[in-house]
């Protein structure tokens, strides 16, 4: 009985496919459907990148204390709203408009703007806007548990309307770095190093959370309140990264490229998780899940720039180094008394830099790079371009975000009062609790 129904259904699908086949045979319809399929691909991956916002939200919520969760989620939520508007009004014009090597000047409010690829402008815009939101939201984690909410709103508009698009123009919008042959396939520098450095500048200006460091300089544990939420967040991010990297092909024309990007993305994340777990196990005696998860994210960040230009074995090496780097980064930051509650700096800043440089080591000209990497006999040419590119972006961000945070601090104040910090920002900033009806210790 069931088999018969299945046969009937199967037959129906075949008939439909046959109809679709005849339609595609006509020449005009064929050309239209190529753009259509590309648009579908770009939009679908844009939706995946949008979902990473949920991943960031869950990771950051899980890694902080229960009394601040409502605050961090409001920040994650609103920064995507701010980024969407900012990137619509100013951002896209600065990033992809006609202009000079430093920034674009045409296409404010998307009026008269042109698409940066073969897909329609609106699809391309949505994909880029989702990236812009990701860069903005990285900072929330580094500055968590003590930053004023209004200050964050202003910051998130400024970074997505002006700062991210200018860097984006240099690298993806035909600016001076892209003319030099600088390669950042999906944004190790544009999104992650940028967000990570902004987080570093912000967290250093905010100073550590109350009670994080003792007078003698030793660090205290301020444990995250929900490892399950953080794990869910990492899985969502990993899933979303399959949109972030493979979607950056912006077309389905080259199946081999998409497949290579996807497998590299996955392998690097897996190796990053393994190495981070092993490193922390060796150093501190236990396989710490939070560190293993940071390791997988580190692998994902690092492979974002080179994913199109390297072979799978290289992506494993890149992920392995990323996994070690993230653990060292967390330890060193604590030594320097820089308080980064969720590890935004080691994951996004350090590995954004590492990923960008790795293009110059493992990249192959045969896979679309300007010069062969160090290991393929291309010498230091590509590596030097990568270093110059990421270095100048870092300088620009330190300078511009330094000014943005300083101005916000002067006019509005960046940090909440000590009393509010101890009571929790949920009550202080939003007047509501994340876990109403639960008794939660707010004594730390």
């Amino acid at each position, binding site marked *: 009985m069931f088999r018969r129904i299945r046969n009937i259904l199967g037959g129906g699908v075949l008939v439909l496919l046959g109809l679709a086949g005849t339609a595609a045979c006509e020449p005009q319809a064929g050309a239209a459907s190529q753009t259509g399929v590309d648009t579908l691909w770009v939009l679908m991956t844009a939706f995946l990148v949008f979902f990473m916002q949920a991943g960031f939200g869950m990771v950051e919520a899980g890694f902080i204390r229960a009394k601040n969760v409502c605050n961090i989620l409001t920040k994650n939520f609103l920064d995507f709203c701010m980024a969407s508007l900012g990137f619509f009004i100013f951002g896209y014009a600065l990033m992809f408009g006609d202009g000079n090597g430093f920034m674009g000047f045409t296409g404010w409010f998307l009026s008269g703007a042109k698409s940066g690829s073969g897909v329609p402008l609106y699809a391309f815009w949505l994909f880029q806007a989702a990236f812009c939101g990701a860069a903005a939201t990285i900072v929330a984690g580094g500055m968590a548990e003590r930053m004023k909410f209004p200050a964050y709103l202003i910051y998130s508009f400024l970074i997505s309307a002006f700062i991210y698009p200018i860097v984006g123009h240099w690298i993806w919008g035909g600016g001076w770095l892209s003319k030099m042959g600088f390669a950042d396939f999906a944004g190790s520098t544009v999104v992650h190093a940028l967000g990570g450095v902004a987080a570093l500048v912000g967290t250093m200006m905010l100073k550590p959370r109350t009670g994080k460091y003792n007078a003698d300089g030793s660090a205290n544990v301020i444990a995250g309140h929900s490892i399950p939420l953080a794990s869910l967040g990492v899985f969502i991010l990993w899933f979303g990264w399959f949109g972030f990297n493979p979607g950056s092909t912006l077309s389905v024309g080259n199946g081999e490229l998409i497949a290579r990007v996807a497998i590299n993305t996955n392998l690097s994340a897996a190796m990053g998780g393994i190495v981070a777990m092993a490193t922390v196990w060796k150093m501190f005696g236990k396989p710490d899940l939070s560190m293993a998860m940071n390791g997988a994210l580190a692998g994902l960040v690092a492979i974002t720039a080179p994913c199109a230009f390297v072979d799978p074995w290289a992506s494993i090496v890149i992920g392995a180094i990323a996994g070690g780097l993230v653990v060292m980064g967390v330890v060193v930051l604590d030594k320097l008394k820089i308080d980064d509650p969720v590890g935004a700096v080691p994951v996004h800043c350090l590995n954004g830099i590492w990923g960008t440089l790795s293009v110059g080591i493992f990249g192959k000209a045969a896979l679309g790079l300007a010069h062969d990497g160090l290991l393929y006999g291309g010498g230091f040419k590509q590596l030097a371009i990568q270093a110059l590119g990421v270095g100048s972006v870092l300088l620009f961000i330190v300078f511009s975000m330094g000014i943005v945070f300083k101005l916000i601090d002067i006019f509005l104040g960046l940090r909440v009062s000590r009393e509010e910090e101890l009571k929790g920002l949920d*009550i202080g900033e939003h*007047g*509501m*609790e994340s876990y109403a009806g639960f008794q939660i*210790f*707010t*004594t*730390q």
Partner: protein
Amino acid sequence: MKLIIAMIQPHKLPDVKKALFDADVHKMTVTNALGCGQQKGFMETYRGVITEVNLLKKTRIEIAVNEDFLEPTIEAIIKGARSGNIGDGKIFVLDLADCVRIRTGEKGREAIG
């Protein structure tokens, strides 16, 4: 022997603990509590509805002491918990009939010390 029960603001616990350690008092029990005193509650808004929450989060500290430690302990709690505002809390001192250390069976002064 006395039992000291102190109700303090939760966010003052780190300061109180430090003051107690400085006064050489290292033994205590800490619990989460809800309560209200003279302090007014705070306003919470949820989906546009404003409500007053008047059972506030408090932290309850219990410390059993011998007489010579009574005053230093009370002073330490005050030093750590006082901000000068309503809501700083209260300290109750009770007579303690006896105290037994389960591990050794010691009683009274020795069991506390």
